[in-house]
């Protein structure tokens, strides 16, 4: 557990929960990023500007942390080939919309309302993600 960063994780998690809670209480919506992204791809939709505004905020939040303390910003460490990245992106985009939610929608927003759908979704994607990492790291990449 040499890379475990419990306080960073806990502080960031609290911020994420406050952000999703603030979004619910102010705008009345779920901060599920895959759904927000899908609506932000439809300029004709009534909530287009609203969803786009949330998305623009995300990288601004990263910049804000960088301004406060550059050491807090993790350096990206993408591994894997271009083909893997493209496949991963396609699966993430496709799967999250078929399931109506991803880590934020089902995980952060769904679990604390004890939604059975979100519990099932979270258990399912955690299981297939862990299985994929096991195959890629210990069977294929070994």
């Amino acid at each position, binding site marked *: 557990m040499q890379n475990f960063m419990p306080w960073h*994780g806990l502080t960031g998690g609290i911020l994420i929960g406050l952000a999703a809670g603030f979004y619910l209480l102010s705008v009345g919506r779920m901060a599920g990023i895959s759904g927000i992204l899908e609506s932000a791809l439809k300029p004709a939709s009534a909530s287009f500007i609203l969803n786009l505004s949330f998305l623009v905020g995300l990288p601004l939040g990263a910049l804000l942390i960088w301004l406060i303390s550059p050491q807090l910003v993790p350096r990206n460490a993408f591994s894997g080939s271009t083909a893997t990245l493209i496949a991963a992106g396609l699966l993430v985009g496709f799967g999250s919309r078929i399931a109506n939610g991803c880590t934020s929608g089902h995980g952060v927003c769904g679990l604390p309302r004890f939604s059975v759908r979100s519990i099932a979704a979270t258990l399912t994607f955690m299981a297939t993600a862990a299985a994929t990492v096991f195959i890629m790291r210990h069977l294929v990449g070994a």
Partner: protein
Amino acid sequence: MPIVAAVIAGIMFGAGLTVAQMTNPRKILDFLDIAAIAKGGWDPTLLMVFIGALPMMFLAYVIQRRMRRPLAAPAFLVPKPSPIDTRLVAGSAIFGIGWGLAGVCPGPAITALAPTSGQIGSVILFVLAMIGGILLSQFFTASSTG
């Protein structure tokens, strides 16, 4: 007003993902690597993120139940309870495979578009592929509900 609230919520969310190191795919893959629990090197940072986030969101639902409407919108748009179906399980399974391949999910992907994160080429490539996946999913959506 709702737009200002949305930008603030987005900034907080992106700041949280950044502080939690969740924009770094390595942190995600090292969490998902369950073989490392026994071998050593397992990274439970992502678990701490949920431990921090879930009680905050639970609190927000407690407050929401006492409110007639949101502060800056006419009504709450909260999904109604519905049963587990094939789409939910199949979609989540597919999402998980993609998440396990690259260690990136939608929130961190968009947040990592900030030029301070590095490897911007990989991030843009992932985001474009993810948008492609979202557009593809719309062919499988009979009655679209956003």
